[in-house]
């Protein structure tokens, strides 16, 4: 037993095992989130949602996954096969990779990089590549439009997303996510979402845009371009795209919690659970994801030009102004900085 625990201390083995655990979590997360999505939508729609498969319908995602496993995998006759089949993988890998730097608890992080925020920014922006590959590979007017929309949207919203991170980086003075969480302290009013409120809102909105959910789901646009870039995918490739979407949604929630809502820190000092502080992280992430779903079922979709207006004319100026305000305040009161 002791040897096994010692083995965990050895760096490459620890990394591999913890990465395996994270991958397992991510893959299951997609299933759990589809179920949550259907249940939440059910309650918003005044209906039950799945309740026949297993207790209270909890085995529904299992049925969906096994069905998709055995579904025929169609690729259109004129598609660019390698690009077509590579796209879901190119979408899934970045979504899963970002989990490497998410700190679940003080010691529970796969890789505590000192450039974790840069890593997050770099990896998420690869996701747009997968969308473009899917749209191009499918050879369909609908998916091409979806891919163009997706690329434009994800690249545009990358800018406010990164700019809104900078306030936190300035306050912390570090690019490590563990440092960011530790700098926020264990009381709810010292978390960064209060001093950085405009940045928090910007990050939240551009986060929704980054993961392509309503009201920013233009690349999919079910009632316009019938699923957009994923219109031609079936079976497992489609499931992989869905898994990537849900994983990236979860990762954006997790990063929001880490940067602005104090990560694993309890809201008040006496609620400190010690080694079980990851429960706080889980609760906060779930809450953010619930708000994503709440928005999903409540508002209509924007149009492309309005989306660009919002991104470039509202969010970017707002973050830039607040960046200068933060910098000025830090110059005036040096105690603010870490």
């Amino acid at each position, binding site marked *: 037993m002791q040897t096994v625990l010692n083995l965990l201390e050895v760096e490459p083995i620890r990394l591999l095992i913890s990465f395996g655990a994270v991958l397992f979590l991510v893959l299951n997360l997609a299933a759990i989130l589809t179920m949550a999505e259907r249940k939440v939508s059910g309650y918003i729609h005044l209906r039950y949602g799945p309740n026949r498969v297993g207790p209270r319908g909890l085995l529904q995602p299992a049925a969906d996954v096994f*069905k998709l496993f055995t579904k025929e995998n169609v690729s259109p006759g004129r598609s660019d096969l390698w690009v077509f089949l590579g796209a879901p993988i190119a979408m899934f890998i970045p979504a899963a990779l970002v989990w490497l730097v998410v700190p679940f608890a003080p010691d529970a992080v796969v890789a505590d990089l000192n450039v974790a925020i840069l890593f997050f920014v770099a990896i998420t922006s690869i996701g747009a590549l997968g969308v473009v590959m899917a749209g191009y590979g499918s050879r369909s007017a609908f998916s091409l439009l979806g891919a163009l929309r997706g690329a434009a949207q994800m690249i545009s919203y990358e800018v406010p997303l990164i700019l809104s991170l900078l306030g936190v980086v300035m306050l912390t003075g570090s690019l490590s996510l563990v440092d960011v969480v530790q700098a926020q302290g264990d009381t709810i009013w010292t978390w960064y979402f209060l001093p950085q409120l405009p940045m928090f809102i910007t990050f939240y909105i551009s986060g929704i845009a980054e993961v392509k959910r309503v009201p920013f789901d233009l690349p999919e646009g079910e009632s316009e371009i019938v699923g957009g870039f994923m219109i031609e995918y079936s079976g497992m490739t489609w499931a992989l795209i869905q898994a990537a979407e849900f994983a990236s949604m979860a990762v954006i929630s997790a990063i929001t919690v880490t940067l602005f809502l104090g990560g694993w820190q309890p809201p008040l000092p006496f609620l400190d659970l010690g080694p079980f502080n990851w429960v706080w992280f889980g609760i906060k992430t779930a809450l953010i994801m619930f708000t994503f779903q709440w928005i999903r079922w409540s508002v209509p979709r924007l149009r492309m030009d309005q989306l660009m207006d919002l991104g470039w004319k509202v969010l970017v100026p707002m973050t830039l102004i607040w960046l200068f305000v933060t910098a000025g305040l830090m110059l005036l009161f040096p105690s603010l900085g870490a």
Partner: protein
Amino acid sequence: MGVMQQFNEPNLITTSTDKLFNWARKNSLWPLQFGLACCAIEMMSTGMAHNDLDRFGAGFFAASPRQADVMIVSGTVSTKMAERMTRLYEQMPEPKWVIAMGACAISGGPFLDGYSVLMGADRVIPVDVYVPGCPPRPEALIFGVMTLQKKIERDQQVGYERPLPALVDEDGTINEYLPEREYTGISEGKAPRLEGIRPLKRTYVFEREGMPPAAQTDVGWVPPEVKKRLKEEAKARKAAEAEASGDGAATKTEENA
């Protein structure tokens, strides 16, 4: 499924995987979002809050045929639509099922006499479950979905003989197996023409400028000079044909001689 089909008869592996996959398939039947006519409204009602089809795991109406498992043919199928419907059916990945909802999709229903109405969806695609009614109540459609679930439960990968249509004697013995209906024809091109009706002469095809190719086969009114030219061309063609057939007859007689 290639691995499984190497077994000649059912064994432990095939039966247990059958159980798992049939359970998964029957509990996750995603219908294609394919509303044809009046029945589509009742199909929508079925998916809505009062009759919540999502309870059975069948509530995700897939807009793209690639992600759908079951096609609910909800309404009258016109001959113009039959080709599109067949194409949609072919675009769906295996395994796939079809529910014919309503009298029109079963037999043509009240529009049976119509000149552009297909007498039942099963003339072009194989149908698994028929739900009668005009339109069927949502409860009836839910019953149809549950019937389909029972059918899927019986499915086997190996050792399952599909029941063939047969002529059966009074005592129940099978007299003669009938050939299976082949579903070809419509998706390859043309819908079956109505027979026994004299084609009228007052239609002409012409190409319209500035229209995409898909719309160019439609008919338009033709100015008289073009009409004249078309008539002359047809006459010339007919004359050429007559000449050719005359030649053919001549050669034939020569051969006989």
